[in-house]
């Protein structure tokens, strides 16, 4: 049973890698040059899918935090830890890619504009929660406070999304099918699904790491916390 679940994570990851190779090949060599940004625009095929999936991972972390508080169960704490770590990894990659794209288009690697500043706050908040989890030995207290902290930190995620609409920003508005030429759709979508599958596989496997650690922490003796089994 455990091996089947483990295999699922690797299969999801393999599908993700295959889609990413296909989408990136399309974006680099088949998709046309953009009229104003030229070839530099090809960074969009990795930057935007990473952004979407980073926010999706952190939204899943928020859902896990709610489930952990409302329903209990160690599996939600394991998934919360996994989703936060994968979300932070993707968000850090997002900032690096944004920086690489900003240099040739804006002329600077970084600017404290609303989108970038709120993203930096989002990364710092979730990375801080992950770091602080290591300092709490009691699994019950750790699960409770990190779920509460994740819910508080999640407040910044919609602010990141709407920051380009609410304030004047160097960053462009969100792209939509109406604002992106049809020639650019396919590599963008293929890479978005590629990172989605890879992210799902990584969260699945990372949650197993957290569950195995918890199993070691909790056994024996089992705590009388009223929480259900680890998985």
């Amino acid at each position, binding site marked *: 049973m455990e091996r089947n679940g483990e295999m699922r994570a690797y299969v999801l990851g393999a599908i993700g890698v295959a889609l990413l190779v296909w989408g990136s090949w399309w974006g680099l060599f088949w998709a046309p040059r953009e009229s*104003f940004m030229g070839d530099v625009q090809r960074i969009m095929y*990795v930057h935007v899918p*990473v952004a979407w999936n980073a926010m999706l991972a952190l939204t899943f972390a928020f859902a896990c935090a709610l489930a952990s508080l409302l329903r209990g169960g160690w599996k939600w704490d394991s998934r919360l830890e996994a989703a936060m770590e994968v979300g932070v990894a993707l968000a850090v*990659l997002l900032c690096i890619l944004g920086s690489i*794209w900003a240099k040739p288009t804006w002329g600077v690697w970084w600017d404290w504009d609303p989108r970038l500043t709120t993203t930096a706050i989002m990364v710092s908040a979730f990375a801080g929660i992950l770091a602080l989890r290591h300092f709490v030995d009691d699994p019950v207290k750790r699960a409770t406070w990190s779920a509460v902290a994740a819910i508080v930190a999640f407040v910044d995620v919609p602010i990141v999304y709407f920051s380009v609409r609410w304030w004047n920003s160097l960053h462009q508005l969100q792209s939509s099918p109406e604002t992106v030429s049809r020639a650019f759709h396919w590599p963008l979508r293929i890479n978005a699904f590629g990172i989605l599958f*890879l992210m799902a596989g990584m969260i699945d496997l990372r949650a197993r790491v957290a569950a195995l650690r918890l199993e070691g922490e909790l056994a024996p003796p089992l705590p009388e916390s009223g929480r259900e089994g680890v998985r």
Partner: protein
Amino acid sequence: MGVIEGGWEFVWAAYGVTAAVLAGYAFSIHLRYRAERRRRERERSAT
């Protein structure tokens, strides 16, 4: 209206960083999972 010429070095850097970060992070999870599973198997067999 200006048009950006060239810039392939930025494109390659972006795709290279993406591949390196995603591959490195995925591999680190794989290694941690393997190590954790072995540790748990040792602990289970000891009890």
